[in-house]
């Protein structure tokens, strides 16, 4: 079965959005339209029982593009602006409850790498840096990762560099669960008891494809259900919050190269 960039982006966005619960205050970082769209879709489908803080403004009406505007153009569209130090405090006191992160690698413990491949003094790859990736897994009640190019090097047994520590790390003194799930272009995986468990497989994939493209052993029930297609309400929300499909930008083109176009 084949899937287009758009289908992949749509299903990833709604899969992330479904993990948002009423009352969540979702922080969205720089340059992650899938994360932003997911938070805004959740705000729509929960009928605004969710708040989204992105680009220093809260709940900007008008969707993804409005959140990316300059603040002077947001007057009339947002209830207010949040200085960055205030948002740091919100995270540390858990008034912010959730963040979506897009690392280069996620490993079997949910550890996240947004830093580098290889040694620090002479790496073979240097990513742009994780901003809060190192911080929020230890602060927020939960963090959810996503990766639009599910393959063994993206989901290795062990990340090359632990930028952000994963699920169930020791020493947290509040209810900070760490990275509780990763949504990829193939499946939805939750981290439970320090193990990745496949919750659902996207319609264009199957258990063996997911297993072969993951660098660590998954708990992968034979009867893992398909990830439900976007509902009419979700499709309406997607159109509302991201009519120009900024979310597609994060999916590689061609999606997943040649390994996924036929299942």
């Amino acid at each position, binding site marked *: 079965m084949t899937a287009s960039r758009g289908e992949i982006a749509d299903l990833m966005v709604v899969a992330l959005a479904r993990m948002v619960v009423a009352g969540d205050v979702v922080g969205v970082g*720089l*340059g992650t339209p899938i994360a932003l769209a997911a938070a805004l879709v959740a705000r729509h489908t929960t009928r605004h029982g969710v708040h989204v803080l992105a*680009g*220093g*403004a809260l709940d900007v009406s008008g969707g993804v593009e409005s959140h990316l505007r*300059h*603040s*002077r153009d*947001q*007057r009339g569209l947002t209830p207010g*602006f949040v*200085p*960055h*130090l205030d948002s*740091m405090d919100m995270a*540390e006191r858990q008034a912010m409850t959730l963040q979506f992160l897009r690392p280069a690698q996620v490993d079997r413990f949910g550890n996240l790498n947004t*830093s*580098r491949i290889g040694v*620090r*003094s*002479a*790496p*073979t*790859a*240097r*990513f*742009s*840096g*994780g*901003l*809060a*990736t*190192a*911080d*929020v*897994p*230890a*602060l927020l009640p939960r963090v959810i990762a996503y990766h639009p190019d599910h393959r063994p090097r993206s989901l290795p047994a062990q990340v090359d*560099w*632990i*930028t*952000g*520590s994963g699920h169930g*790390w*020791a*020493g*947290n*003194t*509040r209810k*900070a669960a760490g990275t509780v799930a990763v949504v990829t272009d193939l499946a939805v995986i939750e981290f439970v008891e320090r193990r990745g468990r496949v919750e659902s497989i996207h319609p264009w994939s199957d258990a063996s494809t997911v297993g072969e493209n993951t660098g660590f052993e998954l708990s992968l029930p034979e009867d893992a259900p398909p990830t439900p297609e976007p509902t009419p309400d979700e499709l309406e929300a997607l159109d509302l919050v991201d009519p120009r499909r900024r979310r597609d930008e994060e999916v590689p083109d061609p999606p997943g190269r040649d390994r996924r176009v036929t299942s």
Partner: protein
Amino acid sequence: MAPNPKLVDAFRAAETVQDGDTLYFGGTVLDRKPMELTRALIRAGRRDLDVVTFAGSLEIELLVAAGSVRSVAAAYVGLGRFGPAPRYVAGVKAGGFDDLEYSEWSLLGRLRAASMGIPFLPTRAGTGSETLAIHDFASVADPYSGDTYVALPPLQPDIALLHAWRASPSGHVQMASPPQHLWDIDVLAARAADRVIVGVDQIVSEEAIASIPERTRLFGFEVDMVVVLPGGSWPTSSPPEHDVDEGAIGAYVSSGGEPGTLDSARPS
């Protein structure tokens, strides 16, 4: 009153920087970068700089290309939607300078500790991260619960270099309203630093400052030098004056990181 000594040109400002200084560069990603002050530092031949910025972009590119840096401490270096910062990435891979990656909270927490005048800031942020471990911060036990926290020590740069909207001769600095995203980090870094140099698009009278006092973000007694540099953040943005020059950044990326494409101040 004597002529105000705070107003200087970029040459004079760069002269006050020493080789080996720790410099904080204001602005975040493609916004409010002190590009013209950076060019002045390079023209002045400053070397072995320990560069600190929360989220660096083209200023880091220029400094790396010029061979001016000994270390780069940042939570992000890249060109935003234009992708990686080519000179920076090449420099890191070649081991050309020390890559002091920070987590967001630990860099900002260190600046906060300095601006708050406290000996350390306890935090849970970064626990378990190898990025945090780079810095070998001490830990501290909460005397109430006994739980262990990271103790972030103050980070007090020798100089903070910022680009802002406008200032008066006495050094009161105003920024755009509504506030641009992450503006407050510039203020934080200025308050953490030993000395502060601010390039501005406009110099205005003290009366103009007082006419909209709620936009004043730094006061004269917190600012050591003001440099009038219209377009001095080009090609990064400077609200409310101008947006990011996407064409110029695209040309830089297309050139593979040719610093000559960024050499001059904003074309008018």
